[in-house]
């Protein structure tokens, strides 16, 4: 009944959806899987009206439709249950359910709370939630909130005559096992009234619930598997389905690191409550250690701990043999840690400051006499690093915000390297860069590694992680799953990693 035909969507620099065909029948549950960046979320946004496709058609029961915004999609019976909690926690449950649609309960400007509560109770009954609709939402558990979200979407039933399509985006990520089962049985029951599109990174759940599964990769639907034919291995292969290009990741330049040397960073059973738990590893000079996992698996939090932006709740962190007792960024910088954040434009560079100002930002003390800057020296330093890293900028005065992404990244790198940082944390260093700029970053990683710098990397793609690293630690839900040694020629396959990630 609901169908996407040849749908295309382009963003500047990215072809997010490449002529995608997608179909969902009445009462069907369709799974949608793919790696991060495979195009799942773009597809969902097209379906519920947040994005408009550049090409192709959307049809409902054979009639062409076009949604300008989510509200119009709702009017056609398409509702979204968001992954991030989208309930307003200071409002009552019933107010959340009818937010934006209160008018039906208003007479002479007065809200009839009794009528709204009655209607809300009816919606809650659909999801088998027996709570007072007047409860403040913040008092509910996450599982209950998830059900309220579902109930909110199900109000479409009364408002819309036709069939419903409900999107569930990672609905189980905050739920315990029993709660997941409860949700699933509910969804199965509700197929009498609605079709569901189910997105999750937990493969077993997708297999369990879905009638059919769409597998996406690089903006394309690479396979559609029926429930009975599905098996985890085959789907995972489809999701990844590429071989690593050794040349591209400078694998030939990878040299063994100094295994015997004193570790630069040592984690012993470190836990940060709610972020990751019981993590241990050593980072040695020249080593590229890659943390692999899905979003929220604890990768970023580990980086931030080393830099000092996150204070662990248990375990011992030491840097260059000295235990770290105080966690803040000043200590991190003093210890020679350099942090290259993912949000380059927000945390990496200061837009509005010049190239040389950015380069010395973390080490102004080295270029100042009792607080007075030696600007001449700063500029000399900047010129040297502009040459060394081949940064494309007209001069040292250029506003960093006006440089291209790759050159911004080089400035950030120069900031840390010129200050002598020998522990470099790279968080998605190639995100949003074009191919040439990516290769520059890979070269720099190898050079730093040759200089004896210890690098901890959270890579943009699995290939990148495999290609660049000496060591890989796979994380899942904050726990270390598996450690791989990745000497050239003997690297784990994508499939090996994915297997432990999800």
């Amino acid at each position, binding site marked *: 009944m609901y169908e996407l035909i040849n749908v295309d969507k382009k963003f500047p620099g990215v072809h997010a959806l490449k002529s995608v065909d997608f179909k969902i029948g009445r009462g069907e549950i369709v799974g949608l899987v793919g790696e991060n960046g495979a195009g799942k979320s773009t597809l969902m946004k097209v379906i519920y009206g947040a994005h408009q496709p550049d090409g192709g058609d959307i049809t409902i029961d054979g009639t062409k439709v076009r949604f300008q915004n989510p509200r119009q999609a709702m009017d056609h019976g398409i509702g979204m249950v968001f992954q991030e909690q989208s309930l307003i926690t200071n409002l009552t449950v019933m107010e959340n359910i009818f937010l934006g649609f209160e008018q039906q309960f208003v007479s002479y400007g007065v809200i009839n709370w009794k009528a709204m509560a009655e209607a809300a109770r009816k919606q809650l009954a659909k999801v088998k939630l027996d709570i007072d609709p007047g409860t403040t939402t913040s008092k509910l558990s996450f599982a209950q909130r998830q059900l309220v979200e579902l109930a909110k979407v199900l109000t479409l039933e009364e408002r819309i005559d036709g069939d419903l399509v409900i999107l569930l985006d990672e609905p189980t990520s905050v739920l315990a096992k029993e709660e997941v089962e409860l949700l699933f049985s509910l969804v199965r029951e509700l197929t009498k009234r609605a079709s569901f599109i189910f997105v999750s990174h937990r493969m077993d759940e997708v297999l369990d619930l879905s009638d059919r599964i769409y597998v996406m990769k690089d903006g394309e639907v690479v396979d559609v598997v029926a429930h009975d034919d599905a098996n985890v291995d085959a789907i995972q292969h489809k999701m990844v389905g590429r071989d690593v290009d050794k040349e591209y990741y400078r694998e030939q330049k990878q040299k063994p690191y100094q295994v015997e040397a004193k570790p630069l960073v040592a984690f012993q059973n470190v836990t940060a409550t709610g972020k990751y738990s019981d993590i241990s590893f050593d980072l040695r000079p020249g080593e590229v250690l890659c943390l692999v996992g899905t979003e929220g698996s604890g990768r970023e939090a580990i980086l931030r701990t080393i*830099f000092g*932006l996150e204070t662990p709740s248990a375990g011992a962190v030491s840097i260059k043999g000295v235990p770290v007792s105080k966690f803040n*960024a*000043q200590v*991190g*910088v*003093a210890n020679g840690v350099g*942090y290259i*954040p993912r*949000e380059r434009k*927000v*945390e*990496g*560079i*200061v*837009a*509005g*400051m010049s190239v040389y*100002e950015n380069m*010395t*930002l*973390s080490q*102004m*003390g080295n270029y*100042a006499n009792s*607080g*007075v*800057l030696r*600007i001449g020296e700063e500029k000399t330093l900047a010129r040297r690093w502009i040459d060394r890293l081949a940064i494309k900028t007209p001069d040292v005065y250029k506003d960093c915000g006006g440089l291209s992404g790759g050159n911004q990244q080089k400035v950030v790198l120069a*900031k840390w390297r010129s200050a002598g940082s020998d522990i470099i944390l790279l968080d998605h260093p190639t995100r949003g860069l074009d191919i040439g700029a990516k290769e520059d970053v890979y070269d720099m990683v190898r050079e730093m590694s040759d200089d004896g710098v210890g690098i901890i990397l959270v890579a943009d793609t699995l290939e990148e992680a495999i290609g660049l690293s000496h060591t890989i630690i796979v994380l899942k839900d904050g726990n270390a799953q598996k450690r791989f040694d990745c000497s050239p020629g003997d690297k784990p396959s994508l499939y090996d990693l994915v297997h432990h990630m999800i």
Partner: protein
Amino acid sequence: MSFERIKPHLPWITLLVLVLVVGAADSNFLRPSNLISMAADIVPLFIMALGMTFAIYIGGIDLSAQSVANMTTVVATIALPTFGIGAALICILAGVVLGGVSGFVTTRLFVPSFISTLAVGGIAFSAAQYMSGQRALFMDASLRDSTFGWMTGSLAGIPSELFIAAALVLGAWFLQSRTTFGRALKAVGAGEPAAVASGLNVNRIKIMAFALSGGLAAIAGLLFAVKLSGGSPTLANGFLLPAIVAVLVGGTPLTGGVGGVINTLIGTLIVAVIRSSMLYFEVDATQQQMVFGLILIVAIALTIDRTKLRVVK
């Protein structure tokens, strides 16, 4: 796009145009003596605006400036007989401490600066009322002249206030553009997350910015007290609005990061020219506040960097 290109130059172009317009209408206006006395009159306001610049430069605001200045007029008057020139030091110290408190409350206690400075302003106002016994106080004329006479005298026909202002603006400019502190201020104003991720002690920098704002507001109050030869808890009332206007009209936007002390110099001159032109065009003095309020709205609307505000609350 082209507007974005002109934007940084808008303040001085505005100043130039205003001066020419007023000068064309009133030939007396451009006489050097008139210009000098106009500039000298505005020095206390300029000093307060200079301090406010630091608070706004980091993306905050200092609504306590006026109350701090009020308080220092009282402190100066009371302390003069006992401490002589030391009274000046006490005033500045009081301002720095109050500003530091605002900064501390803002950064460490997570109270938005417009509330924290409002509250600290309330404290300063109370202190001023307490110390003055809610009366206007007067300085002993001979004592004032012997201690602070240099502030109000003149050198080679130029009022010494202008030298004070010049010294302060040079100092502030040096601080802003040549020191690690100034660089750090810019980083905090232009990109606070990046400043944190570069290991800067952002909280300390912000506290120092507010302390600086308080200290300069105190100097403004001191100068005012000397000029008027006395102090009262309401002496500097009516300064807050033009001070904020001066900073914003000068091109330091509410979102911080660009502009700076030289911009405030230009902004203050714009305010001064507008004021004297209102006199010339016989716009009633009672309308000044309304006019400045409207200018303020226009100035904010033109300068503010909306990309920095995710949600405008």
